[in-house]
C-alpha cells in the first residue's frame, strides 16, 4: 500500500500533466449528487470504458447512500434537533462518514486502476462536488510505461 502511494508520487513527479477531463454532474435525478457515466473521448486510448463506468457508478452509489432519505437519516436529524445540533460537535454526520469512504475508494482506484494508466482521479469534494476531475499525464520517462496497450493518440485521444 505504501509502495503504491509512493508510485503515485513518483508518477506526478516524472510525468507532466497533459490535460484534464471533467466529468459533469447528472441532474436527471434531481439535485442528488450523481455524475454522468458518459465516457469522455479523451480517455479513449487510456482507459477501458467498463472500468470508467464502474468507477462512476460506484461513486454514484456512494453519494446516493450519503443522501438517502430514510429512517436512519430522520433519526439522526431529529436527535440532532433535540440537542440543538450540539451533538455534531462530538459526532460525525452520516454524510461525512460516507465521504470518508469515498475518499478511500478513490485512493484505491487511483492506485490500482488509474495511476498505472497515467491518470489521476480527484475527489469531487475538492472541486465542490461539481465535477470528477481526471488528470491525464504524459509520461516523460521512457522506462515507465504507463499502459500495457500501446497508446496512439491519433483518434479522439488526448491532446
Amino acid at each position, binding site marked *: 500500500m505504501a509502495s503504491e502511494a509512493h508510485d503515485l508520487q513518483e508518477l506526478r513527479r516524472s510525468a507532466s500533466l497533459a490535460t*484534464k*477531463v*471533467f466529468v*459533469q*454532474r447528472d*441532474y*436527471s*435525478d*434531481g*439535485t442528488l449528487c450523481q455524475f454522468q457515466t458518459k465516457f469522455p473521448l479523451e480517455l479513449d486510448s487510456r482507459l477501458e470504458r467498463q472500468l470508467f463506468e464502474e468507477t462512476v457508478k460506484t461513486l454514484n452509489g456512494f453519494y446516493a447512500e*450519503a*443522501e*438517502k*432519505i430514510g429512517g436512519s*437519516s*430522520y433519526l*439522526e*436529524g*431529529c436527535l*440532532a*434537533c433535540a440537542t*440543538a*445540533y*450540539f451533538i455534531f460537535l462530538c459526532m460525525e*454526520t*452520516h*454524510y*461525512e462518514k460516507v*465521504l470518508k469512504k469515498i475518499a478511500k475508494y478513490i485512493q484505491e482506484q487511483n492506485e490500482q486502476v488509474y495511476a498505472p494508466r497515467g491518470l489521476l482521479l480527484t475527489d469531487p*469534494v*475538492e*472541486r*465542490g*462536488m*461539481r*465535477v470528477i*476531475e481526471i488528470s491525464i499525464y504524459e509520461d516523460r520517462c521512457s522506462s515507465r510505461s504507463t499502459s500495457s496497450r500501446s497508446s496512439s493518440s491519433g483518434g479522439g485521444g488526448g491532446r
Partner: protein
Amino acid sequence: MSVMVVRKKAMRKWEKLPGRNTFCCDGRIMMARQKGIFYLTLFLILGTCALFFAFECRYLAVQLSPAIPVFAVVLFLFAMAMLLRTSFSDPGVIPRALPDEAAFIEMEIEATNGTVPQGQRPPPRIKNFQINNQIVKLKYCYTCKIFRPPRASHCSICDNCVERFDHHCPWVGNCVGKRNYRYFYLFILSLSLLTIYIFTFNIVYVALKSLKIGFLNTLKETPGTVLEVLICFFTLWSVVGLTGFHTFLVALNQTTNEDIKGAWTGKNRVQNPYSHGNIVKNCCEVLCGPLPPSVLDRRGILQQEESGAQGDSSTRGPSTQEPGALEKSSTQEPGAAQVLSAQAVGSTREGSSSPTRQSAVPMLPLSPTGMPEETQPSAVELPAQTRDDGPTEH
C-alpha cells in the same frame, strides 16, 4: 543592503476565498459583510429577554410557577443557538470553478454554440435537463464560471452561488441555503414561540399585578413591561407570519426564491419536480434530511512561501480578488431584490400570489426576523447596509 527572509507561512484557504464574506475565528465562522442588522437582531432578542427575566419572571415564578422562567430560558437558548448556527454556518456555497475547469466548460459551450465575435454579447448559456419528466434549465454563472445546479442561485450580496438558495437574510447576516435552511426555520419557529410566550406572560403579569396595586402603578413599577409588550406585539405579526410562510414552503418543498419567481406556478409552468407530493415527506426531507458538509474547506492549509521584506499580507477578512464581480453580478439575479421582496412577501403573504418586486421597491425589509416592525429604523438601517460596516468588520 536588504535581507530577504523567506519563511513558509501556513495560510488557510478562507483567506483567499473569493466572494464577499467575512470569516472569523480563523475560518470557523462565515458571515456576510454587512452585519449591522444582525447585531440589531441580537440586541433586541437579548434585551427583551433580559428585561423579561429581570422583572416579570421574578414575580411570576413566585406567584404562579417556577416552570415559567425555566421554559423561557430553554426557548431563549434554543432560539439563540439556532440564530448563531444560521448566521455562522456556510449556507451551501458552491466554490468557483478553477481555471482548468472553467476553460473546459467554455470549450464545451463554444462547441455547442459556436464562437461569438468579439464585442458581441454571448447568448445566454443554458443547459436543459430532464428531472422527473420535467425539463429544467441550468443557467451558467458568469461570476463563478459554472453551470449552476438546479435550485442554486447566485447571491449578489455575498457574490457566491449558493445551493438551494432561499434568500439572503440581513437579520441573520447570512444567506439562507441548503445547509442552514433548517436552522433558519427552527430559529424563526422558536422565536415565534418565544415572542408569543413573553407576550402572553407579560399580559398575565400586568393583569395579576394590576389586581393588587392597580394598572398604572404596575406600569410605573416595571416600565420595561411596556417596551416588551410593544416589541413583542410588532414582532408577532412579522415573525409569526414569516414562520407561517416558511412552513408553507417546507410543506411544498419550495424555496423563497422559487416562490417569488413563480417557478412552479402558472398554467404553462412545470410542476415542482422536487416535491414528493406528500406534506409529511417534504417536511421530513427539508428539516430532517441528511446534512451535506461544507465543500469550501475554509480551514484547509494553503502552503505559501512569503518573503519577510514584503511584510505579512494575510489579514482576517476576505480578499476581494474579483472587483469586477460587482459589475458581473449585476447581470445575475438581483439577490438584493430577492432579499427585500422575500421579506416583503413573508409579512404580507396570506395565501394570495406574491406581489414580487414592486413591493420591494421601497427597500424595506417588512418581515424581519428580529423584533421591531417599525419601518423607520429599517429605513435608517438600509443605507448602512450598503456601506461596509467599518467598526464592526472583523
